[in-house]
């Protein structure tokens, strides 16, 4: 995987969908996810991405039961 390609993608999050289950956190190979202090309108603490650590591998997309994560084109 070439670095230049990686930069063409970004991870986006639909935090309103997050139920704070933590599946993404347990599965992230880069330890780039953490349960934040912030709470969404449903009242769940939401998982957030540490951009510095994220490799955009999108395992979070794969494991999230609530469709919070997407990897899309764009800087």
């Amino acid at each position, binding site marked *: *995987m070439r670095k230049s*390609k*990686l930069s*063409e*993608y970004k991870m986006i999050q*639909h935090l*309103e*969908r997050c*139920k*704070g*289950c*933590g*599946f993404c956190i*347990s*599965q992230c190979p880069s330890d780039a996810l953490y349960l934040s202090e912030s709470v969404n309108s449903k009242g*769940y603490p939401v998982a957030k991405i540490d951009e510095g650590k994220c490799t*955009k591998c*999108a*395992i979070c*997309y*794969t*494991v*999230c*039961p*609530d*469709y919070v*994560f*997407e*990897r*899309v*084109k764009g800087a």
Partner: protein
Amino acid sequence: MVEKRIPQLLVEDNKFCPGCGHGNINRVVAEVLEEMGLADTTVGSLAVGCACLMMDTFGVDWIQAPHGRAAAVGVGVKRVRPECCVFTYQGDGDSLAIGLSETLYAAIRNENITAIIVNNGIFGMTGGQMAPTTLSGQRTTTSPKGRDVSITGQPLNIVNQCRQLPIGYLARGSVASAKDINKLKKYIRAAFETQMSGGGYSLVEVLSPCPTNWKMSLEKSLEHIENDVKPIYPLGEFIKKGEKTDA
């Protein structure tokens, strides 16, 4: 690298509890139907239980069957509209307790439909009662001291029940890890491919966590699947293209 977009079939946020595996399974099924170009010709049959929450959030034509009868309803659709992709989506209580007859007879007749059975070891929506798949010794709201198999019989292994039948495809997957989910997607794709090529009945059982009714954190739930559930319900593909595998 490619985009990872939430499938358009998931028209609304799901209504499952935090950590529920149904969300993963929904997304995998949606991805497969879209990738195979089946979104517009699919009819789903679901019955009663948490599965029926999909009716508002998953954008295919649906029929809601009486409890246990999704397979019979799906068969009714498929027989008159063989061009449609027809699948059932049910929990273990629904498909294997009240609906075991309908489930097994769809398999016995090798009906050209796809069955997705979510095994979380309990009745979810009604509050965590014992299901056919509940493990020996497992506490539920109707087996408060743990399932006593001398009274209830052994947990029901639908894969073993179906393995001797002349069906097209049979697999058991899991949503307990990213690796499992990736494999599950292959199984579900193979199941729908079996149907669309006229290969007969396909069934995928999916081990799935129910942190709410198991009264466990998701982390503990995943450990429970790994350590306690998988040894009883091993993963793999058991029938492919009508042939038994070595699994």
